[in-house]
C-alpha cells in the first residue's frame, strides 16, 4: 500500500494570457520509507504537484480541478484534511529558506514553536527539543546559535534550520522542493548527505523535487519525470537513467556535460521549453522530438511498460523502441 497516491491530478492557473493547465492528469505513488525524485524543468508542473499535495496551491489564481490525492487512506483534497496533516504528518522544505523563516524571531524559538503549538510543550521543553534538533541536523555550536536570528546564518545553515523545523513533529512524508538549488556545490553535497541520512534514520518517505538529474542519482530509489504537466516516464532511478524510454529523458541525459572521459559535442534537445498557453495536440513533447509522427499529433501517449524492461519502468511515448536502442 502506498503512503501517498496521486491519481489523474489536474491543477489550473488563471494567468493574464488565459487559463493554463499546470498539472494535466499526473498519477504516481510514494511508498512508505521510499525516496522518490520528482524531476522536470521549468514549467513541468513538479512544484505545483507538491503544492497540491500540501494543500497550498496559491489561490485564487490556482485551482485543483480534478483527480485525487490520498495519503494513508485519507482524502487530502477534502476540506481541512491537508491542513490538519501539514507539519505533523507531511512536511515540506523549500528552495529559499530565508523567505520561509520569520526574520524577527530567534531561530531556537521558531523551531521550538512547533513543539509549543502542536505538543503543548513548555518554553523550557521546547527550547531543549529545538537544541536537540539543531544538533541532529548538524548545526555547529548549536547551544550558542539558539538565540541567533535567521540573517545571522549562512544559506546552508538556514536550510538546516528549515530541515530541523520540518522534522520537528516526526513527519512520515517529507517533500523537499529544490532544497539545494540556491546553495554552493560543496554545501549542496552536505545537505543532500544530511537528507539521505535523516531519511534512513527516520524511515520516512522523502520526495525530492529538482531540475538536476545528478543531484538525486545517489539518493533516490525511484524517479518520476514530468514534462508540460504530465508524467512522461517513471521507474527505478538507475533503470530510467540507463535505459531511458522517453526521448525527453534521453535528451536530458545527453544534455549534461560529463565530468570525466573525452569531451564530446553535446546533443541538446531542440527547440524551447513548452509554452503552457499554446501546447500542441497529442504529445506535448512532439515539436522537440525526432521520433514524432502523425500518431503523436493525434493521440496523447499514456504511461505503459517498455518492451523487454521491468514492469516498474513506464514511459508515455508511442515510439519507445527507437529511444531505447538509441545509445548516447
Amino acid at each position, binding site marked *: 500500500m502506498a503512503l501517498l497516491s496521486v491519481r489523474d491530478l489536474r491543477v489550473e492557473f488563471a494567468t493574464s494570457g488565459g487559463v493554463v493547465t499546470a498539472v494535466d492528469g499526473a498519477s504516481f505513488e510514494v511508498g512508505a520509507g521510499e525516496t522518490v525524485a520528482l524531476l522536470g*524543468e521549468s514549467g513541468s508542473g513538479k512544484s505545483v504537484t507538491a503544492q497540491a499535495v500540501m494543500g497550498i496551491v496559491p489561490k485564487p489564481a490556482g485551482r485543483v480541478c480534478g483527480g485525487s490525492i490520498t495519503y494513508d487512506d485519507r482524502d487530502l483534497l477534502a476540506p481541512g484534511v491537508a491542513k490538519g496533516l501539514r507539519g505533523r504528518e507531511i512536511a515540506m522544505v523549500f528552495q529559499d529558506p530565508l523567505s520561509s523563516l520569520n526574520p524577527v524571531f530567534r531561530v531556537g524559538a521558531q523551531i521550538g514553536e512547533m513543539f509549543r503549538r502542536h505538543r503543548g510543550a513548555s518554553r523550557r521543553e521546547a527550547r531543549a527539543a529545538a537544541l536537540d534538533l539543531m544538533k541532529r541536523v548538524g548545526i555547529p555550536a548549536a547551544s550558542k546559535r539558539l538565540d541567533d536570528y535567521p540573517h545571522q546564518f549562512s544559506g546552508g545553515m538556514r536550510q538546516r534550520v528549515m530541515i530541523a523545523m520540518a522534522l520537528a513533529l516526526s513527519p512520515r512524508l517529507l517533500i523537499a522542493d529544490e532544497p539545494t538549488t540556491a546553495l*554552493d556545490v560543496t554545501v549542496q*553535497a552536505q545537505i543532500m548527505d544530511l537528507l539521505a541520512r535523516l531519511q534512513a534514520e527516520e524511515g520516512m518517505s522523502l520526495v525530492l523535487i529538482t531540475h538536476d538529474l545528478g543531484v538525486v542519482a545517489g539518493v533516490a530509489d525511484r524517479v518520476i519525470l514530468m514534462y508540460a504537466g504530465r508524467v512522461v516516464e517513471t521507474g527505478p532511478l538507475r533503470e530510467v537513467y540507463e535505459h531511458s524510454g522517453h526521448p525527453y529523458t534521453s*535528451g536530458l541525459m545527453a544534455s549534461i556535460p560529463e*565530468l570525466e572521459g573525452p569531451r564530446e559535442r553535446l546533443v541538446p534537445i531542440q527547440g524551447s521549453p513548452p509554452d503552457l498557453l499554446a501546447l500542441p495536440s497529442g504529445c506535448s513533447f512532439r515539436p522537440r522530438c525526432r521520433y514524432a509522427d502523425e500518431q503523436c499529433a493525434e493521440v496523447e501517449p499514456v504511461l505503459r511498460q517498455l518492451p523487454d524492461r521491468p514492469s516498474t519502468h513506464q514511459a508515455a511515448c508511442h515510439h519507445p523502441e527507437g529511444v531505447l536502442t538509441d545509445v548516447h
Partner: protein
Amino acid sequence: MSTESPLLSVRDLQTSFPMRSAVLRRIVGQIQAVAGVSFDIPAGGTLGLVGESGSGKSTVARTIIGLEKAQSGSIVFDGDELTSLPKASMRRVRRQLQMIFQDPYASLNPRATVEQIIAEAWQIHPDVVPRNRHRAEVRDLLERVGLNPDHAERYPHQFSGGQRQRIGIARALALRPKLVICDEAVSALDVSVQAQVLNLLDDLRRDLGLAYLFIAHDLSVVRHISDRVAVMYLGRIVETASQDELFTRPLHPYTQALLSAVPDPKPWDKPAREQIIIGGDVPSPADPPSGCGFRTRCWKAMDRCAHDVPELITRLDLHPAACHFAAELEGAVS
C-alpha cells in the same frame, strides 16, 4: 602562447569594496573581494574561472570591463593597460571586450525591439557597421545565434529564456569583439537549453576566433568549454591548469572537494571513489581566516596554514597550486 603575447594579461589584480557602518555609512573597513589574481588568455583561447559564492570571480570580470575600479595590479588587453586608460580610449577598447550576463531578461531593455537592442552599440561605434547596413547585419547576427531573422521586430518578453540569452550573445557579437566575458551565462537556463547555448558558444569560438573568459560555478560546464581552468576561493586563485590536468589530477584540497561534490548522474559508471564532503560554508570575504583562506574547511590544515599564505607555485613541472601540501599531493597522484 609562450611566444605571442596574450590577448588578456591580468597581474596581481586587487579589488576591494568599502565596508560601511550601519547608520552613518562611515567607511569602517575594506572587503578584499579580489586579493591578487593573475592569469593570461591567449587570442582564441578559453579560460574557465570557477568558484563558489564569495570567491570574487564575478568581481574579476567586472573589474576587467571597468565596472569596478582596480585597487592595484595590471590588466593588459590587446596591448592597452586598462587600469590607467583614459575614458575616451576605454570606449575604443570596450569594442573588443564584451560581456554576457547570467540573467538575459534583466540586461535587455524591455521597451526596445531586438533590432534596436542589437543595433544600439553601432550608434556609439558608427564605424563598425554603416547605417544602411544595420538591418541586414542584425538579420545576419540573429541567424548566426540560431534565432529567426524575421523576429527582429519582436520584444524581449516574446522570447523564452534560452532565446533571450541568444539575443544577449548577438548583442555582444555586434561590435565584433576579440574577447567575450561570460558571467554565469548559462547558469539560469534549463539543462536542455543550456546544452544548445554551450554548442553555440563553441561554434562562435571556432568560426569567429573568439576568446572567452568563462565564469561559472558549474564544473562540468566549465570542463566542457575551457582550455585552461582557474579555481578561485576567497579572492585568490588556488589552482590553475589545463582543463585535462585539473579534472584528472586536482592538487589543491579545495579543488578535490569541489570536484567530488559535483552531482554525477551516473555514479555507478565510475570506479568507486571516496566522496569528500567538506564541512562549513565559504567564510565571509569581510572576515577571511588568517593564512590560507581554505584552512577552516580543510582536512589537511596544520598550524602553519594559519600563519603563512600559501603561494601559487608550480612544483615538479605540474600545474600551480596554492597549498603548503601540494608537493606531497603531487607525489600521491604522479
